[in-house]
Protein backbone atom coordinates (compact mmCIF):
# COMPACT_ATOMS: atom_id res chain seq x y z
CA UNK A 1 0.00 0.00 0.00
CA UNK A 2 1.28 3.41 -0.96
CA UNK A 3 0.32 6.29 1.35
CA UNK A 4 -0.03 9.70 -0.26
CA UNK A 5 -0.67 12.92 1.68
CA UNK A 6 -2.48 15.81 -0.01
CA UNK A 7 -3.00 19.36 1.26
CA UNK A 8 -2.88 23.00 0.22
CA UNK A 9 0.65 23.31 1.60
CA UNK A 10 3.13 24.33 -1.14
CA UNK A 11 5.87 21.80 -2.10
CA UNK A 12 8.57 23.65 -0.16
CA UNK A 13 6.53 23.48 3.07
CA UNK A 14 5.86 19.75 2.56
CA UNK A 15 9.54 19.13 1.73
CA UNK A 16 10.56 20.87 4.94
CA UNK A 17 7.98 18.93 6.96
CA UNK A 18 9.14 15.60 5.46
CA UNK A 19 12.73 16.46 6.37
CA UNK A 20 11.98 17.44 9.97
CA UNK A 21 9.52 14.58 10.59
CA UNK A 22 11.69 12.10 8.63
CA UNK A 23 8.83 11.04 6.34
CA UNK A 24 9.61 9.37 3.02
CA UNK A 25 6.19 8.86 1.45
CA UNK A 26 4.67 11.10 -1.21
CA UNK A 27 3.34 14.54 -0.27
CA UNK A 28 1.31 16.34 -2.93
CA UNK A 29 0.45 20.03 -3.06
CA UNK A 30 -2.90 21.37 -4.16
CA UNK A 31 -2.64 25.10 -3.37
CA UNK A 32 -5.44 25.97 -5.83
CA UNK A 33 -7.68 23.26 -4.31
CA UNK A 34 -8.38 21.75 -7.74
CA UNK A 35 -8.27 18.12 -6.65
CA UNK A 36 -9.60 18.95 -3.18
CA UNK A 37 -12.61 20.57 -4.89
CA UNK A 38 -13.07 17.63 -7.29
CA UNK A 39 -13.21 15.34 -4.25
CA UNK A 40 -15.67 17.79 -2.60
CA UNK A 41 -13.46 18.25 0.45
CA UNK A 42 -13.07 22.05 0.54
CA UNK A 43 -13.42 23.39 4.06
CA UNK A 44 -14.16 27.07 3.34
CA UNK A 45 -12.11 29.42 5.51
CA UNK A 46 -11.01 26.45 7.60
CA UNK A 47 -7.37 27.49 7.65
CA UNK A 48 -5.59 30.26 9.51
CA UNK A 49 -6.54 33.77 8.36
CA UNK A 50 -9.64 32.39 6.65
CA UNK A 51 -7.88 30.43 3.91
CA UNK A 52 -9.77 27.61 2.24
CA UNK A 53 -8.25 24.23 3.06
CA UNK A 54 -9.06 20.54 2.70
CA UNK A 55 -11.06 18.83 5.40
CA UNK A 56 -9.45 15.65 6.71
CA UNK A 57 -10.52 12.62 4.70
CA UNK A 58 -8.95 9.32 3.69
CA UNK A 59 -9.61 7.18 0.61
CA UNK A 60 -8.18 3.72 0.02
CA UNK A 61 -8.02 3.22 -3.75
CA UNK A 62 -7.28 -0.23 -5.21
CA UNK A 63 -5.12 -0.88 -8.28
CA UNK A 64 -8.16 -0.54 -10.58
CA UNK A 65 -8.70 3.00 -9.26
CA UNK A 66 -11.82 2.07 -7.28
CA UNK A 67 -12.43 3.46 -3.80
CA UNK A 68 -12.49 0.51 -1.39
CA UNK A 69 -12.65 2.35 1.94
CA UNK A 70 -13.09 5.95 2.97
CA UNK A 71 -13.29 7.99 6.10
CA UNK A 72 -14.65 11.49 6.65
CA UNK A 73 -14.08 12.79 10.13
CA UNK A 74 -17.01 14.63 11.69
CA UNK A 75 -14.70 16.30 14.21
CA UNK A 76 -11.41 17.81 13.09
CA UNK A 77 -9.74 16.48 16.24
CA UNK A 78 -10.70 12.87 15.48
CA UNK A 79 -8.59 11.09 12.84
CA UNK A 80 -8.22 7.44 11.95
CA UNK A 81 -5.22 5.71 13.48
CA UNK A 82 -2.43 4.34 11.28
CA UNK A 83 -3.23 0.78 12.41
CA UNK A 84 -6.89 1.22 11.40
CA UNK A 85 -5.87 2.35 7.90
CA UNK A 86 -3.30 -0.48 7.63
CA UNK A 87 -5.98 -3.01 8.63
CA UNK A 88 -8.22 -1.72 5.82
CA UNK A 89 -5.33 -1.88 3.35
CA UNK A 90 -4.61 -5.50 4.31
CA UNK A 91 -8.12 -6.47 3.23
CA UNK A 92 -7.18 -5.66 -0.36
CA UNK A 93 -5.50 -8.60 -2.11
Amino acid at each position, binding site marked *: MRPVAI*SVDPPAVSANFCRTANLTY*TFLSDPKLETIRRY*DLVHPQGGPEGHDISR*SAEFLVD*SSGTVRWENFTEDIRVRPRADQMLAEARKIQ
Partner: protein
Amino acid sequence: MPEINQTQKPANILLWIGLVIIVLAVLSNFLYFFSMPQAIIPWINLLLPLIGLYLLIIGVKRAFKQPQLYSGKIWGSIVTALAVAFLCLSIYGAIHARDLPPSKSAPRVGQKAPDFTLTDSNGQPVSLSQLLSSPVGNSQRPKAVLLVFYRGYW
Protein backbone atom coordinates in the same frame (compact mmCIF):
# COMPACT_ATOMS: atom_id res chain seq x y z
CA MET B 1 -23.17 23.08 70.49
CA PRO B 2 -19.53 24.19 70.64
CA GLU B 3 -18.53 26.90 68.24
CA ILE B 4 -16.37 25.65 65.38
CA ASN B 5 -13.40 27.92 64.92
CA GLN B 6 -11.43 28.50 61.72
CA THR B 7 -8.85 25.79 62.34
CA GLN B 8 -11.47 23.13 62.94
CA LYS B 9 -13.48 23.96 59.83
CA PRO B 10 -13.45 20.91 57.54
CA ALA B 11 -12.10 21.31 54.05
CA ASN B 12 -14.79 21.86 51.43
CA ILE B 13 -14.04 18.55 49.76
CA LEU B 14 -16.43 19.13 46.83
CA LEU B 15 -14.46 22.21 45.82
CA TRP B 16 -11.23 20.24 45.85
CA ILE B 17 -12.68 17.34 43.86
CA GLY B 18 -14.21 19.84 41.41
CA LEU B 19 -10.85 21.57 41.03
CA VAL B 20 -9.06 18.26 40.37
CA ILE B 21 -11.67 17.29 37.75
CA ILE B 22 -11.32 20.67 36.02
CA VAL B 23 -7.54 20.20 35.89
CA LEU B 24 -8.12 16.71 34.42
CA ALA B 25 -10.56 18.26 31.92
CA VAL B 26 -7.86 20.68 30.75
CA LEU B 27 -5.37 17.80 30.46
CA SER B 28 -7.92 15.68 28.58
CA ASN B 29 -7.31 17.88 25.53
CA PHE B 30 -3.93 16.17 25.23
CA LEU B 31 -5.50 12.69 25.01
CA TYR B 32 -5.42 13.01 21.21
CA PHE B 33 -1.67 12.37 21.37
CA PHE B 34 -2.16 8.98 23.03
CA SER B 35 -3.13 5.67 21.52
CA MET B 36 -6.76 5.30 22.49
CA PRO B 37 -10.06 5.29 20.61
CA GLN B 38 -10.27 8.88 19.42
CA ALA B 39 -14.03 9.06 18.97
CA ILE B 40 -14.70 9.14 22.73
CA ILE B 41 -12.18 11.89 23.50
CA PRO B 42 -14.42 14.85 22.47
CA TRP B 43 -17.07 13.53 24.89
CA ILE B 44 -14.50 13.28 27.68
CA ASN B 45 -13.48 16.87 26.82
CA LEU B 46 -17.06 17.99 27.47
CA LEU B 47 -18.15 15.68 30.27
CA LEU B 48 -15.22 16.37 32.61
CA PRO B 49 -15.71 20.17 32.74
CA LEU B 50 -19.46 19.63 33.24
CA ILE B 51 -18.94 17.27 36.19
CA GLY B 52 -16.19 19.47 37.65
CA LEU B 53 -18.34 22.58 37.36
CA TYR B 54 -21.34 20.84 38.95
CA LEU B 55 -19.27 19.86 42.01
CA LEU B 56 -17.75 23.33 42.25
CA ILE B 57 -21.17 25.00 42.19
CA ILE B 58 -22.43 22.75 45.01
CA GLY B 59 -19.21 23.41 46.91
CA VAL B 60 -19.50 27.19 46.54
CA LYS B 61 -23.19 27.10 47.54
CA ARG B 62 -22.25 25.21 50.68
CA ALA B 63 -19.49 27.69 51.46
CA PHE B 64 -21.93 30.63 51.23
CA LYS B 65 -24.89 28.98 52.94
CA GLN B 66 -22.95 27.36 55.76
CA PRO B 67 -19.78 29.42 56.10
CA GLN B 68 -19.40 28.18 59.68
CA LEU B 69 -19.01 24.63 58.30
CA TYR B 70 -17.44 24.98 54.88
CA SER B 71 -14.51 27.05 53.69
CA GLY B 72 -13.62 28.20 50.21
CA LYS B 73 -15.98 31.12 49.53
CA ILE B 74 -13.35 33.17 47.73
CA TRP B 75 -11.09 30.61 46.05
CA GLY B 76 -14.09 28.40 45.27
CA SER B 77 -15.83 31.28 43.49
CA ILE B 78 -12.71 32.10 41.48
CA VAL B 79 -12.19 28.46 40.43
CA THR B 80 -15.90 28.15 39.57
CA ALA B 81 -15.76 31.27 37.38
CA LEU B 82 -12.69 29.86 35.62
CA ALA B 83 -14.47 26.53 35.21
CA VAL B 84 -17.47 28.28 33.60
CA ALA B 85 -15.10 30.03 31.18
CA PHE B 86 -13.33 26.75 30.41
CA LEU B 87 -16.63 24.94 29.81
CA CYS B 88 -17.76 27.71 27.42
CA LEU B 89 -14.43 27.40 25.61
CA SER B 90 -14.82 23.60 25.41
CA ILE B 91 -18.36 23.89 24.00
CA TYR B 92 -17.23 26.51 21.48
CA GLY B 93 -14.28 24.28 20.48
CA ALA B 94 -16.54 21.25 20.07
CA ILE B 95 -19.00 23.15 17.85
CA HIS B 96 -16.15 24.65 15.80
CA ALA B 97 -14.46 21.24 15.39
CA ARG B 98 -17.64 19.75 13.93
CA ASP B 99 -18.31 22.66 11.55
CA LEU B 100 -17.34 20.75 8.40
CA PRO B 101 -18.63 20.67 4.82
CA PRO B 102 -21.01 17.79 3.97
CA SER B 103 -18.84 16.46 1.08
CA LYS B 104 -21.92 15.00 -0.62
CA SER B 105 -20.20 14.75 -4.02
CA ALA B 106 -17.07 13.05 -2.72
CA PRO B 107 -16.29 9.69 -4.38
CA ARG B 108 -18.00 6.83 -2.55
CA VAL B 109 -16.89 3.26 -1.92
CA GLY B 110 -17.26 1.32 -5.16
CA GLN B 111 -16.82 4.42 -7.34
CA LYS B 112 -13.72 5.32 -9.34
CA ALA B 113 -11.45 7.83 -7.62
CA PRO B 114 -11.14 10.87 -9.92
CA ASP B 115 -7.68 11.04 -11.45
CA PHE B 116 -5.54 14.08 -10.74
CA THR B 117 -2.07 15.45 -11.29
CA LEU B 118 -0.43 17.40 -8.48
CA THR B 119 3.07 18.55 -7.62
CA ASP B 120 5.08 16.52 -5.13
CA SER B 121 7.47 17.97 -2.56
CA ASN B 122 10.32 17.81 -5.12
CA GLY B 123 8.32 19.95 -7.53
CA GLN B 124 7.57 17.00 -9.87
CA PRO B 125 4.08 16.38 -11.31
CA VAL B 126 2.52 13.13 -10.05
CA SER B 127 -0.83 11.65 -11.13
CA LEU B 128 -3.09 9.18 -9.32
CA SER B 129 -2.74 6.71 -12.22
CA GLN B 130 1.05 6.96 -11.86
CA LEU B 131 0.79 6.35 -8.11
CA LEU B 132 -1.34 3.25 -8.78
CA SER B 133 0.92 1.80 -11.46
CA SER B 134 4.49 2.74 -10.55
CA PRO B 135 6.46 0.28 -8.41
CA VAL B 136 6.99 0.79 -4.68
CA GLY B 137 10.36 -0.14 -3.19
CA ASN B 138 10.57 -3.85 -4.04
CA SER B 139 9.60 -3.13 -7.68
CA GLN B 140 5.99 -4.30 -7.38
CA ARG B 141 3.06 -2.07 -8.11
CA PRO B 142 1.10 -1.24 -4.98
CA LYS B 143 -2.10 -3.14 -4.18
CA ALA B 144 -3.64 0.14 -3.15
CA VAL B 145 -3.00 3.84 -2.71
CA LEU B 146 -4.14 5.54 0.47
CA LEU B 147 -5.04 9.15 -0.24
CA VAL B 148 -4.81 11.14 2.97
CA PHE B 149 -6.25 14.61 2.59
CA TYR B 150 -5.07 16.71 5.53
CA ARG B 151 -5.68 20.25 6.66
CA GLY B 152 -2.15 21.51 6.04
CA TYR B 153 -0.61 24.71 7.42
CA TRP B 154 1.93 22.67 9.39
